[in-house]
């Protein structure tokens, strides 16, 4: 049962990571640029959730679920702002410029939030509170199950948006071939901005979930960003299912190796695994997604 328990824990953690990776890969596909600020955007979402809980009347006793739409909306707006500051002005330049500008945004986010809310860890109200539930003999915290549920719903919702709505199709077309998308009348600039908004909204949701289950502090962003980067690399650069798979693998690694040896070793082993992947199979599990055209 040990293994089953670990598997469940890994699944819950993986679900949150998957949300982070999904937002990351959406922006990556839309812009072919790595958004270094993504992890800090997740953190910002968590901090926003904590702040809202503190500020709203009855905030503390509301289930975290109520805060979710507000956080996602707020984060979407933030994502838009980031795209206007750090991406659009540098679109035509060398890709490394966007990398640097998003690093700058990450710094500003991290320290700005630290200034506004203090460096201490915060927590947001749990989505579901109560005693752990007994599931086939496994102890499953309600919060963990709720996290799994919310993440699964959001991922499914995003998948639905991308596959079955005109808007989602336009997003995908813009990512796959921006010039041809324009040639069929799609406003690619708007699509890119929307990808930022959507990706950041998902990041915010992930942040809220993290803030519920763990703590979130202004410094937690960097680590998450690296994990998203790793997930996308392991899964295959630009592949959405790859990113999700990569996220689950990372969670499995963390939970598994941590339980078997120790947490720091788990972290270190993750990076070593990453380096091995880069050397031996740089295209990742699912291969680099069918190429973009310029």
């Amino acid at each position: 049962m040990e293994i089953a328990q670990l598997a469940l824990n890994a699944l819950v953690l993986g679900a949150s990571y998957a949300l982070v990776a999904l937002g990351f890969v959406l922006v990556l596909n839309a812009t072919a640029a790595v958004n270094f600020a993504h992890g800090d955007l997740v953190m910002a979402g968590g901090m926003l959730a904590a702040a809202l809980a503190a500020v709203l009347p009855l905030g503390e006793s509301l289930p975290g679920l109520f805060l979710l739409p507000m956080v996602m909306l707020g984060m979407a707006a933030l994502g838009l702002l980031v795209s206007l500051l750090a991406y659009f002005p540098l679109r035509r330049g060398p890709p490394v410029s966007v990398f640097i500008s998003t690093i700058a945004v990450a710094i500003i986010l991290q320290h700005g939030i630290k200034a506004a809310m203090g460096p201490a860890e915060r927590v947001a109200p749990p989505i579901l509170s109560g005693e752990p539930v007994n599931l086939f003999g496994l102890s499953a915290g309600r919060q963990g199950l709720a996290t799994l549920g919310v993440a699964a719903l959001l991922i499914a919702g995003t998948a639905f948006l991308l596959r079955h709505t005109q808007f989602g199709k336009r997003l995908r077309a813009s990512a796959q071939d921006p010039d041809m998308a324009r040639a069929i009348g799609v406003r690619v600039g708007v699509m890119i901005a929307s990808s930022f908004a959507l990706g950041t909204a998902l990041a915010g949701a992930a942040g809220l979930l993290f803030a519920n289950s763990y703590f979130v502090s202004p410094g937690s962003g960097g680590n998450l960003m690296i994990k998203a980067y790793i997930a996308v690399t392991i899964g295959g650069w630009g592949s959405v299912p790859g990113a999700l798979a990569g996220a689950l693998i990372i969670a499995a690694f963390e939970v598994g190796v941590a339980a078997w040896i120790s947490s720091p070793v788990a972290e270190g082993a993750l990076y070593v695994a990453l380096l091995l992947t880069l050397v031996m199979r740089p295209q990742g599990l699912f291969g680099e997604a069918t190429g973009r055209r310029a």
Partner: protein
Amino acid sequence: MTLLAITDLEVRYGSIAAVRGVSLAVGEGERVALLGANGAGKSTLLKALMGLLPVAAGMVSFQGRSVSSLAVERRAALGLGYAPEGRRVFPGMSVLENLEVACPVGPSERRRRIEEAFDLFPRLAERADANAWRLSGGEQQMLAIARALMSKPALLLLDEPTLGLAAGLRAELGAKLEKIAAAGTAVLLAEQSVDFALGFAQRAHIMRTGVIVKSGETTALRQDTSFTEAFLGR
């Protein structure tokens, strides 16, 4: 009525003038061909018309208004359809999705237009759910054209549709184009295959190293013995 009027167009690729001093017009429902070997400038011209390349000099007007400064998506909305060289269908999207995304109308009208597309290209109906990258060259070509027609354009810009297609498929494609033109869509076709182009178009312009060297009705051009020279040089 003149649909498209180009005056003294010049398009540069870095330091190379790929198109120089080109003037031509396409009327409503007309079928015009651009002929020439590679490097002649045909594709560059079509890209510039669509707005995908900047224009160094000259003017382009469509349906009476100047479009030289309009963004690509605006030109598409005005009634220019484009099926590029190399097809460039959206690889990760299915045939059906490729068509849907190109349809700027409501769901019921969209369904109607897709039905029409499937009528015109039954092969696409068979492969409706396949991801576009899996399609054969010919199927991708049909998809690219069907996609360009989704917005019911007044003028269809077609860039080298027969590239890489076997003879049988070419004939089939030619027949489809006939139907499209018969329905009233004007077509500006850039082609290397003289055979195909002269069979379809009413008028043709021959391009070489960026300029138009010969123009005329296709019936006259067929009989012109200096044709190969114009095309390939000595």
